[in-house]
C-alpha cells in the first residue's frame, strides 16, 4: 500500500515538474507539449495508438518467448558439454562485441519490413543476457549437492536435470527480468529502421510531422507496456520459485 502511494506521489511530482517546465519556459507545443495535451492526444488517438501498440506487443512477446527458449537451451548445452563450451563461448562473447543495433538494417534487408525482422531484433537483444545469466547459475551449483549426487551414483545427465537446472532457475529468472526490459528496445529499433506498423513507426511518423504530442503519447504507452511486461514476468518468477 505504501509503495502504491509512493509511486503515485512520484508520478504526480514528475507531471507537475513537466508542466512547470513547459509553462515557465513558454515552450511551443511542437517542441515539448505539456502533460495535459499529451493525455488528451492519447485519448483522441486511442484507436490509432492501440492498433500500433498491438503490433509492437506481438513483436516483443514473440521475440521474448523465442529468445528465452533459445537462451534456455543454449545455456544447458553449454553447461552440459565442455566441448560446446570451448567452441561456442568465444563466438558468444564475440557476438556481443558487434552492436545489435548495427545489425538492424541488415535484418530488415534479409527478413523484410514485416513482423519477422522485429522479432529477430528482440530475440537477438535478449538472447545473450538470458543465456549468460542462466549459464552462470548452472555453473555455480553448490558443490555439496553435486558431491551428494556423486556418492548416490547419479549420472551427469540426471544431475544436470534434477539438481543443476532447478538450482539455476533463479538465474534464469533474472535473465528473463532483464529480457523484459530489453525486448521492447529491440522491437522499436527494428521498427525505426524499416516498418509500416508499430509504436516505433508511429513515433517516427509523428516526429516527422511535428506531432510531438502524439509521439509522447506513443512513448508513454510503450513505457507502460514495458513496465507491465517486467512486472508480470517478475510476479510469475516469484510465484514459480516460491510455491
Amino acid at each position, binding site marked *: 500500500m505504501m509503495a502504491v502511494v509512493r509511486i503515485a506521489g512520484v508520478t504526480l511530482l514528475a507531471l507537475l515538474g513537466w508542466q512547470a517546465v513547459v509553462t515557465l519556459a513558454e515552450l511551443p507545443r511542437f517542441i515539448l507539449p505539456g502533460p495535459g495535451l499529451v493525455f488528451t492526444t492519447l485519448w483522441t488517438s486511442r484507436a490509432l495508438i492501440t492498433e500500433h501498440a498491438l503490433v509492437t506487443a506481438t513483436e516483443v512477446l514473440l521475440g521474448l518467448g523465442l529468445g528465452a527458449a533459445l537462451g534456455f537451451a543454449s545455456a544447458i548445452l553449454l553447461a552440459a558439454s565442455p566441448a560446446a563450451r570451448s567452441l561456442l563461448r568465444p563466438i558468444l562473447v564475440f557476438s556481443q562485441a558487434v552492436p545489435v543495433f548495427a545489425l538492424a538494417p541488415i535484418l530488415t534487408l534479409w527478413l523484410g519490413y514485416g513482423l519477422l525482422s522485429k522479432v529477430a531484433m528482440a530475440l537477438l537483444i535478449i538472447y545473450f543476457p538470458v543465456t549468460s545469466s542462466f549459464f552462470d547459475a548452472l555453473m555455480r551449483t553448490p558443490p555439496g549437492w553435486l*558431491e*551428494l549426487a556423486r556418492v548416490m551414483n547419479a549420472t551427469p545427465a540426471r544431475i544436470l536435470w534434477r539438481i543443476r537446472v532447478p*538450482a539455476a532457475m533463479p538465474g534464469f529468472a533474472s535473465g528473463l527480468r532483464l529480457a523484459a526490459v530489453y525486448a521492447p528496445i529491440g522491437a522499436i529499433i527494428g521498427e525505426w529502421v524499416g516498418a509500416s506498423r508499430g509504436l516505433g513507426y508511429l513515433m517516427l511518423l509523428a516526429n516527422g510531422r511535428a506531432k510531438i504530442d502524439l509521439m509522447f503519447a506513443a512513448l508513454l504507452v510503450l513505457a507502460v507496456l514495458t513496465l507491465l511486461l517486467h512486472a508480470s514476468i517478475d510476479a510469475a518468477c516469484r510465484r514459480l520459485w516460491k510455491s
Partner: protein
Amino acid sequence: MTAAPALHLSGCATIDGAPIFGPVSVEVPRGRWTCLLGPSGVGKSTVLRLMAGLGDEVTLEGTVGAGDGAPLGARVALMAQSDLLLPWLDVTGNVTLGARLRGQPPQLDRARAVIEQVGLTGHAAKRPDALSGGQRQRVALARTLMEDRPVVLLDEPFSALDARSRALMQDLAATLLAGRTVLHVTHDAAEAARLGHNVLLMTQGGITSVPPPDGPTPRQFDAPETLEYQGRLMRLLMVAQ
C-alpha cells in the same frame, strides 16, 4: 543391504603440494561406529572425502578402500554438516532423491516408513524451509537410511544443532545406523564419548586409538564413565600440538 565391510586408509595426502595430513593409518572395523575426533584443519574431513571417493583435488600417496578389496563405489552413503536438502523438493522428494538420480522408481512406501522412523510423520509434504534445523537434519538422516548402504560416512552432521536436538539426533542415528560401518568425523569430544565403539584421535602428530568405556551406545551423556572418558579425550585434545 549387503554385509558391511571394514575401511582402511593409509598414507600422506597433499593438495597442490601442500601437506594435508602426514603418514597416517586409519582402520575402521566392519559393522561398528568409529569416531574420528580432532581439531579443525587436521585433515579429518579429507580422510572421509577420500573414503567417499570424492577428494579429486587431493593427492593421496597410499591406499584407501574396503577391507574385502571390492570397490566402495556403490556401498557408501554420505551425511554432511549441511543437510544438503533441495529446497524445491518436499521431504518425500528429498528422501527419495537417490532413486530419482539413478533413474529408479522411488520406493514411496519405504520412504514413508523411514520418515516415520526419524519422527517426521505428518511433515512428508513440507518443504525444507518450513522445517527447523533439527528436523532438516532428520530428513538428511532419512535420506541416508533410504540409500540403505552398508557404509555410512558422517561429516560433523550434528555440529550445527542446539544441544538438545544434537543429543536426540545422536540417539536416533546410533539406533538407526546400528550394524553398518560408520565413520563419524567430529570435533566434539562429548559426541565421540557418546557414540564411538572406537574413537580415533587425529592430531598433527598422527592418529591414536583411545578405547572408550564398555557397554552399549549411545552412552548416557551424564553417566560418570561417559563424562570421565569425555574429559580424557578433551585432555588429549588440549595437549596435542
